[in-house]
């Protein structure tokens, strides 16, 4: 509707419009007004404590140069990766075996359903006591956060496979291995990747909280440290770094998903 009303302007304007997608410039307006409102709020004196966007941008290089910034990235990513890897391996193997064996599922699923609603962070104090090192604690929490979404999604994915596919494969003479690789795996893969991408988001969330509570290094610790030294700019830079880290991992996850399921690329 908008385009119809404003589209009949001069030729030059039309060229500009052709060059610039409305989605693009309207998005730019949105983001720009967000920062303008933020800066204006700062000038007015509302939220006087908060740094303005200009302060943040100015502080970024200095914050990035501070000791341990890149080491923090490394430490957090390693925790996320380790926890996520263990969770993926365990959740996939347990999910697949429960998806294929009814008895195992009847025995094991209720227990996992009882454990699932307990928020991962509620395990934090217990794991600090239980695990010998803070590193193990954080990896364990990350694992907990990632395990359930992957597990639930792969199980749902296996359930959702059309029984007729399995019957068709059987009547065409497929053995157990063929059935697994040619029917089960492609059938459950989309749901698995849904679970994996939910899980990678949760792992960042959990690792940040765990680092705030008990780490000596990491992006969450960086933010917490800035809080302790009352450096608001540091807090905001820490938050932004965490956001970027989460986005990058989701992007990688999506890329892997697209390449693992080339038949879904068109959608």
């Amino acid at each position, binding site marked *: 509707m908008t385009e119809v009303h404003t589209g009949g302007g001069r030729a030059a304007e039309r060229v500009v419009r052709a060059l610039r997608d409305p989605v693009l410039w*309207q998005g730019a307006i949105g983001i720009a007004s967000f920062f303008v409102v933020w800066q204006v709020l700062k000038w007015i004196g509302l939220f006087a404590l*908060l740094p303005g966007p200009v302060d943040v941008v100015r502080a970024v290089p200095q914050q990035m140069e501070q000791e341990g910034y890149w080491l923090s990235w490394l430490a957090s990513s390693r925790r996320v990766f380790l926890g996520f890897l263990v969770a993926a391996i365990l959740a996939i193997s347990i999910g697949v075996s429960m998806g294929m064996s009814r008895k195992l599922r009847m025995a094991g*699923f209720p227990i996992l359903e009882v454990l*699932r609603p307990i928020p991962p962070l*509620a395990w934090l104090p217990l794991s600090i006591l239980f695990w010998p090192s803070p590193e193990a604690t954080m990896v364990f929490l990350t694992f907990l956060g990632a395990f359930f979404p992957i597990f639930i999604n792969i199980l749902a994915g296996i359930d959702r496979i059309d029984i007729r596919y399995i019957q068709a494969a059987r009547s065409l003479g497929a053995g157990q291995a063929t059935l697994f690789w040619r029917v089960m795996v492609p059938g459950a893969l989309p749901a698995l990747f849904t679970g994996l991408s939910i899980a990678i988001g949760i792992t960042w969330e959990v690792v*940040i*909280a765990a680092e705030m509570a008990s780490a000596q290094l990491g992006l969450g610790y960086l*933010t917490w440290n800035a809080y302790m030294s009352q450096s608001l700019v540091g807090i905001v830079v820490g938050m932004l770094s*965490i956001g970027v880290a989460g*986005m990058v991992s989701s992007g990688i996850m999506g890329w892997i998903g697209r390449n693992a399921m080339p038949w879904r690329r068109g959608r």
Partner: protein
Amino acid sequence: MAVTNSSLGAAQVDGGYDARLRASPDWPVQAGDWRARLRKASRAQALRYALLGFGIFFGLWYLLTAVIVPPRFNYIPNPALLFGQWISEVPQYGISVFIPEYYGHIWVSVLRVYTAFAISVGVGAPLGILLGWSRFGRNTLFPVVEMLRPIPPLAWVPLAVLALPETEMAVIFVTLLASFFATVLNTYLGVRSIPETYFRAAACLGYRRVDVLRRVVIPGALPFIFTGLQIAMGVAWFSLVGGELIAGRSGLGYLILDGYTQLALPNIFIGMITLGVLGWASSALIRKVGELMMAWHVKGQGGGA
């Protein structure tokens, strides 16, 4: 042949075929006959396996914490002690079902979650509708939402504690952030899922904007909205625990933290399990409300799921 004969003979002895049929597990249970229902349920294979699973779980737990106790397992209370403390009138560590303080923590946490949930739905659902319905709104606001969304709610804790005048507000703010984004995103997807033809039909019938909103947009997006609300409730409990651990002075998250600092191990577990139960019950409540509000949707799917 012999088998048929002998079973026929048995049938004649204990009152005929009808009586045996009535006693068989396949005979439908009469309404109100709870004993038959219980008998039937206890025969179900699923239940037996579930009990087996729980038996193994609790057995291992007991074995590892009370009988063998490998190193570090002494930090986990054995289930008998834990549940004994939980229902004890004079608990060793001051928390049990008879102590008012326990309900105080529960009340504070529930209040925080539901306040945060109400705010995030009150603001998030309209924003989601705006994003889905108006092209300009979507083009301008969606990038901002997408820019802020990757920052995990708990990363906001330090900022919220410093910028907001009260810790209570900071905890609620952190709790509502995650559920806010879940609500916005799902409402948006819900509105986008409504077929364009519905809007055209409404326009042909001369609906005003208000009527389109009331009759097309909201009912059309409702299934997605309720999916969003369920996710929102889950993440609200999740973030609440984080907020209370890091910045709280009360609530179940604080109970767990306090149990840690005082080394009152049963309290940690009581807090965790209570959180699990409350979180599960909240999700179940939303699912029930959703089913009530969307009777047509449930019916359309064939009465289940």
